[in-house]
């Protein structure tokens, strides 16, 4: 069966400080394809450019050259507002540092992407509650981020990433700041979203075991993908 390519990158180069004496090329021409519904992992040593690649995939940052189609859209053609709309509707971000807005409640944080999507107040709050229930955080929805533990914050962040039912979830070391037990819990949520809702997930991780659980593992080294292999897939959890 022919699967749809959702992330299609060719020869992506990312340079910083262009034209300055300290010009730095972080990605040296990365090509990668991710299919719809896939759960892939990107691994590699620190400083190899994983986060940079992730930000380019998520339209948070623009590549210097190359070709990039996201769900069929040419990202080099997109204007700023198009990129905002792509981040809003097609992508859900999960960061190592959670990146919740401190002053507002868990519920409001989850509502935020829907607010920017122009969804009505009632519908927004209904869906946010439903998503918080999905990550088992519905009893803490009126708490502010600093009243939550790391694992709880990350669950709220995942709920928020799911707000506009995006095609892709991009997770940059989502378990990096958590203990292994809590990390396990977060990974279980990702597996569930991948299986039950068919979400495409790109996971950056330093943990070989967690990477091994995914369907495909790409290794980034010094700005290039040097190897790619199939993962073991989900090991039945106790």
């Amino acid at each position, binding site marked *: 069966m022919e699967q749809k390519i959702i992330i299609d990158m060719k020869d992506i180069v990312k340079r910083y400080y262009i034209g300055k004496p300290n010009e730095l090329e972080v990605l040296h021409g990365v090509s990668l394809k991710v299919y719809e519904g896939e759960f892939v992992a990107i691994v590699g040593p620190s400083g190899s450019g994983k986060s940079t690649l992730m930000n380019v995939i998520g339209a948070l940052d623009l590549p210097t050259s190359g070709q990039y189609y996201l769900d069929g859209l040419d990202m080099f053609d997109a204007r700023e507002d198009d990129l905002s709309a792509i981040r809003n509707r097609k992508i859900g971000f999960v960061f190592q540092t959670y990146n919740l807005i401190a*002053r507002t409640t868990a519920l409001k944080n989850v509502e935020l992407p829907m607010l920017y999507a122009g969804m009505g107040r009632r519908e927004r709050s209904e869906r946010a509650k439903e998503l918080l229930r999905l990550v088992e955080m519905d009893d803490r929805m009126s708490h502010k981020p600093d009243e939550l533990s790391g694992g709880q914050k990350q669950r709220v962040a995942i709920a928020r990433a799911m707000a506009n039912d995006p095609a892709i979830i991009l997770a940059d070391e989502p378990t990096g700041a958590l203990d292994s037990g809590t990390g396990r819990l977060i990974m279980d949520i990702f597996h569930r979203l991948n299986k039950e809702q068919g979400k495409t997930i790109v996971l950056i991780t330093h943990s070989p075991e967690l990477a091994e659980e995914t369907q495909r593992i790409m290794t980034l080294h010094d700005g290039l993908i040097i190897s790619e292999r199939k993962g073991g897939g989900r090991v039945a959890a106790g």
Partner: protein
Amino acid sequence: MLLGENISMALAAIRANKMRSFLTMLGIIIGIGSVIAIQTVGNSVTTSFASTMTNMGASNISVGVTQRETEKVKGDESGLEFEGYRIIRTPEESDFIKDNMIADFLNNFSDEIEYIILSESLGTGKITEIKNSATVAVTGGDEGYFKGQNLTLLAGREIGDKAIKGGKAVCLISDYAVRKLYNTEDYDKAIGKVVEVVIGQKFYDFTVVGVYKLDDSGMLFGANADRQTDLYTTLGCVKKHTHSDGYPSFTVVKSPDAQIDTNELRSMIQIFFDRYYHTNRNFEVTTSSFESMLEELTKMMGTISTAISIIAGIALLVGGIGVMNIMLVSISERTREIGIRKALGATNSSIRLQFIIEAMVLCIIGGIIGIIIGVTGGSIAANAMDAEAHASIASIVESVGFSMAIGLFFGYYPANKAAKMNPIDALTYE
């Protein structure tokens, strides 16, 4: 994005930094507060002046002899000429408005005028009755004069038209004077008495026909203080003593049926008397109506409020710059938040709108506090000036609008700076 969401986000941000927000608002509070205060005072003073005037007859016109601003003929046969100074003169008998002019005037304006008020003072003197004495100011009035006095009689009767016409030496004295002179509160006892007033070296006799109630509202002295009260007699009687056939001033009461507005009538009267006075080199007749006085008062208040508004404008400018500064600080503190919002799909314009609304909400709150302070302060000041406080609704509405405009103007630059942040730079900002 919805306006309501932006406003509640703005309020949350302001609440998160209460002290800083308050200090930022201070310039706006002072600026708006002082404008509203002065406008409340101005509005109150003109409103109560206008209502006083309506009670006193807004359509009355006063006509009086005043010294010319510039003397008509250079060089004075008296030789009294000082370079650069205008000699202050008092009008002499020959400068007064003469009986014949008034008669001519009444003939000419019979349709427009209901009556005129004429009075003349004889001076202030003492009445002595055995061991008691009372000080009185003697004024003679015509029919019109007594109509305007609204005296409340406690005993006797008013001075009748016949007595006025005949220039009889009858008078009305105050209850206070009766108590002083005769040690009695039975005012009827004073009726028919002849009082002798000593003014200078001269003696004047008047027969008391009525006792009026003194308006006690202006009472400032103790009961024992010798208070000067008015003694009213007929104009003709005073004229007989002063041997004068002219008046320094009089008041015209416009007829309610007159088909002409007060100001028009006033300028017609002015022209009428100019004919008599164009040959008088030192004096002229000036006319004023309460309406023209109101106009002048309004003009004066306008000048004062323009001056205050300039100062307030400077306060608002400084306040606005303060708002801009604090918005820049706030945006750099919240860079990460801006990055998060962008990562979640906020467009540049929604970020811009968020911060503009935050600046505007800040300014509007400042403006409202300023309005409250201004109305309160202005009302206190107006009350101190014996005017009933009337806040100007128009200036309150304008102030709210103006605060919004300041927020928009000074919030735009910081908001635009926030909107144009690169998402990833903002998100990874330390």
